[in-house]
């Protein structure tokens, strides 16, 4: 694991007070609200939360696929939100995205060789032989035989194989940051481990920094150095994986961890789950957004929005009554 203290001095990616809003029938839905976080070079930050909490929106806002309403995304000293047109286009090759649905993220009418070579063509590498060499290299690196797959179309492959192709396409430009948006959620459990191992291997080989978005805590725990927990567009808790899993400071994190099923039939299922559905992000609760489902909520939670405050040197929590108070 990389040394977190030195990484925080000069993070590769830092998101500062980022807000992303969508217009929804005359009203604004703030999918990401005032989120700040940093990812150090070579680090894997796991971003977890329920469906619809804004994790994917945050990932896409980092890549400027969805332009944020407010805040900054500073990547290696450059504020991406200030970039436009050609400057942004040239920056794009340093940040890549891996999608949840590997089959839909490959053009059904282009062969694998063309799909993986496309990033090279876009960045202006005109030498055919050079392109072919690099495509072969990266395909072999992700565990596909270049001669076997070159002329084939995406529908001839399984989900796991398609995800390998997607990883190859994302890595061929040797990016620095890869946003993985639920990269294994659509895959069979048996394939997940292969893809996670592959990502881990690629991270070492290419020196990648990963922003790993997932709702599966086991997956996040396996790959992340640090974890950020999101609820309804806001960050609840950020910290090193063992600390967040071992001593969760936010009641929401604690509930999420308690909800992980134990693969043992003699253990009774947990009853300590968060009550009800998450509130609509169109009409979030005042103060702390989790207060409507929180067992520790009281008067102040409805009035004041809790700031993200450090509880230990590495862990931060946005809660008026963190569990560390006990």
């Amino acid at each position: 694991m990389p040394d977190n203290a030195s990484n925080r001095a000069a993070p590769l990616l830092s998101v500062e007070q980022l807000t992303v809003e969508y217009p929804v029938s005359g009203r604004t839905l703030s999918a990401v609200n005032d989120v700040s976080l940093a990812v150090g070079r070579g680090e894997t930050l796991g971003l977890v939360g329920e469906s619809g909490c804004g994790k994917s929106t945050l990932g896409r806002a980092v890549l400027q696929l969805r332009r944020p309403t407010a805040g900054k995304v500073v990547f290696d000293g450059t504020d991406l939100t200030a970039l436009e047109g050609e400057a942004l286009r040239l920056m794009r090759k340093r940040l890549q995205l891996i999608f949840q649905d590997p089959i839909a993220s490959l053009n059904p009418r282009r062969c694998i060789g063309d799909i993986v070579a496309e990033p090279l063509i876009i960045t202006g590498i005109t030498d055919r032989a050079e392109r072919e060499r690099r495509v072969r290299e990266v395909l072999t690196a992700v565990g596909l035989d270049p001669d076997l797959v070159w002329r084939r179309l995406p529908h001839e492959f399984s989900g796991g194989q398609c995800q390998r192709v997607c990883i190859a396409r994302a890595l061929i430009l040797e990016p620095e940051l890869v946003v993985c948006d639920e990269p294994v959620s659509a895959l069979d459990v048996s394939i997940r481990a292969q893809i996670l191992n592959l990502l881990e291997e690629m991270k070492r080989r290419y020196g990648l920094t990963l922003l790993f978005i997932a709702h599966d805590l086991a997956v996040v725990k396996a790959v992340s150095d640090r974890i950020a927990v999101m609820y309804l567009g806001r960050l609840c808790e950020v910290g090193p994986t063992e600390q967040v899993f071992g001593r969760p400071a936010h009641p929401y994190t604690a509930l999420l961890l308690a909800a992980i099923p134990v693969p043992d039939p003699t253990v009774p299922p947990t009853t300590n789950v968060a009550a009800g559905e998450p509130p609509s992000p169109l009409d979030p609760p005042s103060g702390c957004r989790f207060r409507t489902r929180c067992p520790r909520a009281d008067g102040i939670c409805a009035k004041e929005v809790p700031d993200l405050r450090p509880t230990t040197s590495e862990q931060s929590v946005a809660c008026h009554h963190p569990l560390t108070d006990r």
Partner: protein
Amino acid sequence: MAVLEIEGDTALVSPVRRRRSRPSGLFLVALVWLALIGLAAILADFLPLVSPTDMDFLGKRAPPSAEHLLGTDQLGRDMLSRLIYGARISLTVGLLAPAIGLVIGGALGMLAGYFGGRFEVITVGCVDVLLAFPPLVLALAVTAYLGQSVLNLTLVIGVLSIPAFTRVARAVTLSLSQREFVVAARTLGATHTRILMRELLPNVALPLLAFFLLGVAVTIVVEGALSFLGLGVPPPAPSWGSMIGEGRESLDIAPWLAFLPAAFMFATVLAFNIVGDTLRALTDPRPATL
């Protein structure tokens, strides 16, 4: 990491075998018919045919003979020759008019579907106006002001076919442009032109092409109807539609004068439909999902 450490055979996996379906016999028959008609139309001038406009008033409505293989019409003109020269006009209009719609409508639809916004609103608005415009009135107006010719006929039908192509192209593009592979291309820094040409066009082209072949079939019928109404090709030149129109007058005494061109039109339209359907089925990589 320990929980998930499963070492599968991750390396050098081979993909599923490719499956190919065979074209049916009907498809081959249709293809042969189209080739025959097409070749005859192209080579009409070199074939040993009687002139389609030479009249023989002594041999009006003659039954098939060695001299006139398919008989003669009400003015004593050779039916086979007229059918083949008629194929020329029917096929020229039938292929060129939808081609106009395909190129202009396809481009407009793709741009509207991809960029959206004000451009889309304006395009869709114009298309709706064109759709609401009565086609016969437009055809009448054009022939009245610009005169009757194959070119004018093609242009009128071509312009009228733009809206349908625009709608098909826009609908397909809309559903595709939110798909992950387009987002992936944007993430790679691809320009709009490149996304339109390399990511979207190959996927939009096939539904458009299938629609084009359908358009050819429809246009041949429309050309026939316009010629039947006297809005098509000017009289001495034969076209299947005008032949049916002329044959109508003698349906009771010589029904084959109308039925022969009608049968040619029927067979050609059917053949285009069969070829279009089969081509779509053959080239669609995933028939169920796209």
